[in-house]
């Protein structure tokens, strides 16, 4: 659609202002992380750079190094579990002759689960973890993060497999491939763009997860990084510098991923969710 020059200029100004309002707070986080603590508490705007915040964060006596490791472990194992289970289930639901009514019931059930606020399930999960002696373990967080991302991942996987013609699986079967063989060697590679979108999206969700880490660990060396940040925000005494530094450590990998894997993330954010 064509529009006049003046209206185009106005639109450009609005969008640029929006972009600046979006970026500026993130930039200030990064700037603060590199400020001296004197500069942070100074009444005016004082820009004196130092690395002391990062030094205190990565001091061997601090828990953050361990928490980064915990978060990475949870992301790798939790995402892997979620994606493998979702790919298998999505493939079966999409390609293996389920009745339309059955598929609809499963998808509707999964959709409904996404509506459940995790906090309402916390008392029951607490009982479960106690029974299994999994309280305060990384294993519990890996399981929970995988399961709570499953509904979305399965729905997305199902729709990605829908776009692959059934004939491909059939000809593989004729060529003597087993059901699992056809899935692994033919269908999965074809669905890879979709699977990678699901993987990236799930990994971001798991890395960002806070609630389960907060209530099912005792903090310290058993907690993920997001929970580590929370310990720096005590109501009466906020340690702004280290807080900003840990914030940067948490956010920068995701920002980099956002730039590198932009397309998959947009697909993840928009595609499956409409149907869920």
């Amino acid at each position: 659609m064509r529009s006049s020059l003046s209206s185009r200029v106005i639109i450009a100004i609005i969008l640029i202002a929006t972009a600046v309002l979006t970026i500026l707070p993130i930039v200030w986080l990064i700037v603060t992380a590199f400020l001296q603590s004197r500069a942070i508490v100074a009444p005016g705007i004082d820009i004196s750079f130092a690395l002391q915040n990062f030094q205190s964060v990565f001091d061997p006596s601090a828990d953050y190094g361990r928490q980064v490791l915990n978060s990475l472990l949870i992301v790798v194992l939790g995402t892997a579990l979620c994606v493998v289970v979702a790919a298998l289930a999505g493939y079966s639901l999409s390609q293996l002759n389920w009745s339309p009514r059955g598929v609809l019931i499963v998808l509707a059930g999964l959709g409904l689960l996404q509506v459940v606020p995790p906090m309402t399930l916390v008392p029951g999960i607490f009982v479960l973890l106690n029974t299994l002696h999994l309280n305060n373990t990384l294993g519990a967080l890996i399981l929970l993060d995988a399961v709570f991302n499953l509904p979305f991942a399965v729905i997305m996987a199902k729709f990605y497999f829908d776009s692959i013609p059934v004939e491909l699986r059939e000809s593989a079967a004729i060529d003597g491939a087993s059901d699992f063989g056809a899935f692994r060697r033919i269908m999965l590679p074809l669905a890879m763009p979709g699977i990678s979108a699901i993987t990236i999206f799930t990994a971001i969700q798991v890395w960002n997860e806070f609630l389960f880490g907060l209530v099912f660990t005792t903090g310290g060396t058993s907690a993920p990084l997001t929970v580590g940040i929370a310990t720096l925000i005590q109501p009466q005494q906020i340690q702004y510098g280290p807080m900003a530094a840990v914030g940067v450590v948490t956010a920068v990998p995701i920002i980099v991923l956002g730039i590198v894997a932009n397309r998959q993330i947009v697909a993840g954010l928009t595609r499956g969710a409409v149907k869920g």
Partner: protein
Amino acid sequence: MTSRLGVETPPRVSTPRRRHQGGGAFKYLAVLPLIVLILGLIAFPLGAMIWMAFGQVRIVAGQFDYTPIGFGNFERIPADTTFITSLVNSAVFIIATVVITVVLGTILALLTDRMVRGQQLFQNVLILPAIIAPVVISIIWLLLLSPQFGLINKVLSALHLPIQTLLGQKAGAMAAIIGVDVWHWTPIVFLFVYTALRGIDSSIIEAASVDGASAFQTARSVILPLLVPAIAGAAAIRVVMGVKVFDEMYLLTFGGPGDATTVISIYLRSVIFDRFDYGYGAALSLTVLLIMLVVVLLGLGARGLTRRFRSA
């Protein structure tokens, strides 16, 4: 869409052949892990929650000590003013954030679509708040809003203007978390609507402008109606996100001042982990889930009604 249409016709011919081919054990084995995990980690906790809701539950020496008390927990709910407050706070938060993010996101999508270039860059920038951890979003806004050390007050005092103390005031704190949520999640509405907008056949829009419609008229009476499904979908997702919201309040306002920003999840956490009142926490959780079920059913009913109304 086209690909799925393309797939659907041929298999109909081959249905008899497929029946004995794709129905093997693998079909069921492949969904088994999903079923086991969902049953174990969601259905079991749901059942445990219902069981706890009807009892007095304490932890004695690491073991649960359960005394059935019938509806005792539920009878406490009407007198629990903090719970009622948390429901009201959640409702205020959800209505405000859904309306504002949907309106802003839609406007931004419509404006972006009118740009000649730079759309991709704009989208890449706007995606950032939606993927950064909510915990970090809380930090970012604490660094801006903090009364003593926040950037906003540093700028205000440098300009000799009165400083803001939003986080210390009841209405201010609610306004602040609504503002943070709008900053955080307008991008997701934008992405939804913008993706749908780019899927609209451009000839429809061209036809409207050939017919002499102004840009505003085209947007209002041609484009917007086509975007209704995407906007409704985005709104529904935003409502669900609003019910679940926890991290920002926990870190930015801790539910305060007083209970001004105590939303449902914040209150549930304090009942369970500060007061160790597991049975009552379960009863409240069950109540929240039932309220949500009613809302979902009403929403589906309303959708069915409008559809019938339209087709009639």
